[in-house]
């Protein structure tokens, strides 16, 4: 591409001057900055091609993504408001904190469309900052993995030890705040079994949570943040904890609760018995129950499709616009008469 590059210095370059102690720099294409190179220039052809190409790629992807999202059937039910007694925040908090009040709450959901198994059950929390700096750091990964490090609670403030000083396992705010609402589903009289095995990442079960580490002193403190753990089950099998401890990126998030491995037909009514234990009332957080099928793109989200269609459309528009520009104001590329000193005939 740059074949004639050597010609500039060939006069001095290829005479190797056999003088002793010559300081003449050795000729090489590298040192003379004449390596072969590709010199892309945004010619009209290139620009239009690029925009068209992007449009051609993006629009079908957008359509596919939208279709995938539309195929997903999703039932979202917000239950935190219905499952509580009291009007003011204080009343709600008092109700939920009272161990003696009934937390059971029964709701019914109607299936809007056929849902093929597996149907994923999620709980969704709003306004819960699992990415809060105080919160996200309050854990100790060594303790979760290694039974020898059960006493290592560094970094777990303020949930390190019980008031009597014994180390908590799993320590830290994240584990302490483990979500503890439970759901049971039934259609008519028939219970829908929820499979809670395999909702967490296999890599977490195998490598992050030890199979010989058992909960100790957990939720024994003055204030209970959430669920208790069965002390006879190793952490690697406590999948709700494992799911919970993979902290969410954003303050509105879903966590897998389980899978319903059974098809649901349209207009079927699902009865859900919710044990509404988890206190989100103190910070006005919302709780939602989500049942959703999935597609190759994950859950229901039209954004990706719309975004791709927009970008693709924009690129087609730009391709057209540039074509118009090139037609309206044609310019011969590399024409020296456009050089600033040539445009003004009075110049040098």
């Amino acid at each position, binding site marked *: 591409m740059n074949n*004639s590059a050597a010609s500039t*210095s060939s006069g*001095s370059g290829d005479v190797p001057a056999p003088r002793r102690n*010559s*300081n*003449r*720099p050795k*000729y090489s294409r590298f*040192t003379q*900055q004449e*390596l072969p*190179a590709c*010199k892309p220039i945004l*010619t*009209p*052809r290139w*620009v239009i091609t690029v925009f068209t190409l992007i449009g051609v790629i993006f629009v079908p992807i957008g359509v596919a*993504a939208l279709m995938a999202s539309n195929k997903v059937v999703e039932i979202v039910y917000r239950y935190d408001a219905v499952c509580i007694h009291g009007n003011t925040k204080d009343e709600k908090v008092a109700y939920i904190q009272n161990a003696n009040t009934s937390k059971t709450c029964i709701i019914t959901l109607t299936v809007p469309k056929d849902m093929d198994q597996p149907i994923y059950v999620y709980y969704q929390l709003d306004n*819960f*900052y*699992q*990415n*809060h700096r*105080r*919160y996200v750091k309050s*854990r100790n*990964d060594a303790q979760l*993995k290694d039974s020898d490090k059960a006493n290592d609670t560094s970094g777990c*403030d303020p949930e390190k030890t019980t*008031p009597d000083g014994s180390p908590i396992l799993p320590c830290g*705010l994240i584990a302490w705040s483990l979500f503890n609402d439970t759901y049971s589903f039934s259609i008519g009289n028939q219970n829908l079994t929820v499979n809670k095995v395999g909702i967490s990442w296999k*890599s977490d079960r195998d*490598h*992050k949570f030890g199979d010989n580490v058992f909960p100790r002193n957990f939720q024994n403190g003055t204030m209970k*943040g959430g669920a208790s753990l069965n002390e006879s089950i190793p952490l690697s099998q406590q999948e709700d904890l494992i799911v919970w401890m993979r*902290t969410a*990126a*954003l303050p509105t998030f879903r966590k*897998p609760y389980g899978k319903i491995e059974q098809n649901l037909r349209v207009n079927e009514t699902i009865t859900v018995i919710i044990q509404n234990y988890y*206190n989100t009332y*103190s*910070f*006005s957080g919302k709780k939602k129950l989500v049942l959703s099928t999935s597609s190759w793109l994950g859950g229901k*989200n039209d*954004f990706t499709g719309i*975004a*791709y269609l927009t970008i693709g459309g924009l690129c087609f528009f*730009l391709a057209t616009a540039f074509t118009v*520009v*090139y037609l309206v*104001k044609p*310019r011969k590329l*590399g024409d*020296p008469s*456009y*050089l*600033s000193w040539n445009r003004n005939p*009075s*110049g*040098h």
Partner: protein
Amino acid sequence: MVGDGLTISREEEEEEEERSLAPLPSSGRHHRRKSSASAASRDGFPNPAHVRHLSRTETERLASSQRELADSNSRIVFIGDPGGSDPRFEIPRNSIRTAKYSPITFLPRNLFEQFRRLSYIYFLAIVILNQLPQLAVFGRGASALPLAFVLLVTAVKDAYEDWRRHRSDRIENNRAASVLDPQSGRFLSKRWKEARVGEVLKVLANESIPCDMVLLATSDPTGVAYIQTINLDGESNLKTRYAKQETMARPPGEDHPVDSAGVIRCEQPNRNIYGFLGNMEVDGKRVSLGPANIILRGCELKNTAWVIGVAVYTGSETKVMLNSSGAPSKRSRLETRMNRETLLLSAILIALCSVVAICNGIWLGNHSDDLELAQFFRKRDYSDGDDKKYNYSGIGTQVFFAFLMSVIVFQIMIPISLYISMELVRLGQAYFMVRDANLYDESSNSRFQCRALNINEDLGQIKYVFSDKTGTLTENKMEFQCASIRGVDYSGGRVSSRDNGEAHYILAAGKHILKPKMSVKTDPELVRLLKNKGDTEQGKRAREFFLALACCNTIVPLVVDTSDPKQKLIDYQGESPDEQALAYAAASYGFVLIERTSGHIIIDILGNRQRYDVLGLHEFDSDRKRMSVIVCGPDKTINLFVKGADNSMFGIIQNKVDLSMIDATKANLHAYSSLGLRTLVVGMRELSRKEFEEWQSAYENANTSLMGRGKLLRAVASNVERELHILGASGIEDKLQEGVPEAIESMRQAGIKVWVLTGDKQETAISIGFSCKLLTEAMTQIVINCNSEESCRNKLQDAVAMYRKFAVISPDPFENALTGTGSTKVSMALIIDGISLVYILKTKLEEELFKVATACDVVLCCRVAPLQKAGIVSLIKSRTEDMTLAIGDGANDVSMIQTADVGIGISGQEGRQAVMASDFAMGQFRFLVPLLLVHGHWNYQRMAYMILYNFYRNAVFVFILFWYVLYTAYTLTTAITEWSTVLYSIVYTALPTIVVGVLDKDLSRKTLMKYPQLYRSGQRDERYNLKLFTLTMMDAVWQSVATFYIPYLAYRQSTVDGSSLGDLWILAVVILVNIHLATDVFRWYWITHVAVWGCIVATLICVIIIDCIWTLPGYWAIFKIMGTGLFWLCLLGVIVAGMLPHFSVKALKEYLMPSDIQIAREMDKFRRMNAATMEIQMNRFSTLQL
């Protein structure tokens, strides 16, 4: 008394600093006196004892006045007694230390040096902040990593350089010197580092001199020693130094016990290599010492079997060491500009932090009731049973902490890696400049030298070039061209063909044939005239003329062997090229100077060898502008020969001479200087015995005086140099360097104004101006040479009026001259001389001069002193933003070179002083064109882009972090792992920008040389300005929005965890900024491909490695998220959406508003294709359009 002494000594020093046309060492009269005495006694002249007596009383009177000075302010050296030396001052030994560090001091000192950079303090402060538990955003290791990395890279570089210095120091310090042992009186071998002040050392021929020594004795009976000072000032010719006669008689050594040796009082160490002041007390006598009596470390002894001297300055106090200051440190304009943008970025940073802190406060305020129970906050710590708050101390403190933490998180808004990248890029650029075969000078076998490493990019923005003339525009290889004798012009040699007078004057000397090294074309008529034995008046004058040329100089003839054993060459060594040219000319006409000893010279006059005793010599000085010599010829007549500049010579001619002859000579002189020749006028006078005696006593008096010696000698000289017969005048051609007119034309087209500052006469300057195409006939010349402030003012006002008149035709001549539009109607040249400048510079008239000078296309300053050169440079520098470049080769250009933004030294004939002071050095003036137009343009373009890109790159990242913080209750959590945050600017994205900064070329060398106008883009700051910065920052904000919000919206209300999303973001941003770079790369070499794509792969690998560490929360996240389709869609979407505005704007701008560079690029690319493919290309293009 002391005060007097001080002023006088300072005066003396100033005198010594003047570099004269023919600086014969000002001392060394004693041996000359001896020879003159012997000559005189032989010839029956008065007994010199009388003279000596007088001089001694004079000496003692003056010396006594110096004693007070000496005691308080000078160094006392006891010869041969190192222990007895002055106890008041700590005198170092002769070991030198150019290394900065020792193994112990390396760490603290190097760190100290590095932390002098303000931005490093900023980063250090952040690292320290991060160590506080309340503020710990990053882990301790991660937070210190970037700073540690940068410090380490620099430290390794420094350590390597220092190790090399240590090594050379060690070699230097362990060289062997022979030092006199006081007990045995023998010279013993010692190492250089052990030599001490006061010790007596012996140096043999071709050995280096270990320290600054006062000569005591030499192998030459007259006490002469020749030294080569090439290491000191680069001058390869030999210089003569003299031992005092008093010590010459009995050198310390075996025969003489050293305890009877004397005491030397001399100045404290200073860096003036051309000056030395002291006296020596030997046997109760005081003798003065000057620069001719001292030999300096770094020089080499030549043509002298041995010398013995006493060390006066050792080690770090030697003049060469005091002068070895490093390269000057200048700051490039781009870097200064960059600081402005850095401040802007700091403002943005503070704004971001404030937003975060305030929002944090508001959030806390709104949720103050909730936080006690909210699981993710939990204000209280129950673990100790009591009810204390955990890590929470009120909103105010939290806001404050949030602010500090956000500074820590957003710190890379100020790119730490930029500083190290810039250094590496400059290193790379320097590598290519040094290796450029086009900047290699064959004749001096010298490469381009990059002495300053931090102003490479300034070369691309030069608007004014201040050039010295002699040795810079011209070769400083003088060639004798014409002679005018008694008003008759002999220019035959100039016009006639070479073979005419080519014959060397060949002398038979025993078995050998001697001939001068260089021959001069001779005028046949003049040769004939000389051969005719001078019967006519004209012939006699011609002989005297050439005799004057042969003897009135300070040339040392050296006989050099050639490959032919029967032939030897006479090489004329001298400090002034003019004198060499004259001596060679005289030799070609048959007046061959064969030998010079301290007392006499031997000249072969047309075959007869004759001895002339040199009785006295008055050096050239800038006041008198002439030199003279008094010789006693074989016929015992005493003649004074004078040569000098015309205006100084015509003032002292005999009144009753033939006026027509004078006029004819003047006419010839005028003709010569219009040809661009340098002229000298030669005169003589025969001295009567009485005159000689008067002169001799005055000369002796002046010579032996300790203070004001120079002044006294000047007075003596002026006294005797009068009533001269004018013998004639000479015209010496100062050849233009190769390619100078073309270079000047290129620079003119590039919008660079070339000003010539020269010490030459106006006529010479103008004629050189014409011959190098600086001046053209079409130009209106404004000449300012005035003798008073008043007339200067009038002249300047006239000039202003004139340019105003022209300005009506073209509205703004200054602006037009820069843009190259419309100024050709009237181009003006200003010619101004040094005397006028005296009245103008540093006065109110300066402003006027500035206006006139900038309106003119060409400015020629003649007869300017070195400091005036600097004054003119600062005239422009202080009033405009324009970049200035000074180029010169001599010591008189040093101040100018140091004042200008960029100083360039020509490593040529006149020594290395200019090179030592310069930022860049090269062999030829014409290299300026490729240097500025090609390398300067590239460097500027590359560096400007790199700085902008670094700002942009880090800003994108910081904004992404910022957007995320808005969704974390303003608590400075980062989804991207802290390691990625830290590695982002030093690993993930660093290499491509460095590679592009070193290698990318917007235009080929050919195009840049062909269209010098392209250089103006640098002058217009086209590649780095506030507008570009703002646009880039807007682009950065958009790209960060795209990068953050596309995944955010796609993953909203999903099960995604922070680490996975963080991995997506970091990969997206790294790919995005690298693609951004890729769209801006002009030339893709394979190295560029490796760097850009390799960096993306390296990032992926790093992210994968980080996600394979099980203790980190993000364990395995990258694999999980890469397994989903949404991840890839997001990545693609981010890149396309992020690049769309940049790409569209770039395409649109390049098409609709193409810069010159863009058009030239297109020409570059499409010109290469042959006509056929071009046609196809265009056809395709048009079909596409249809």
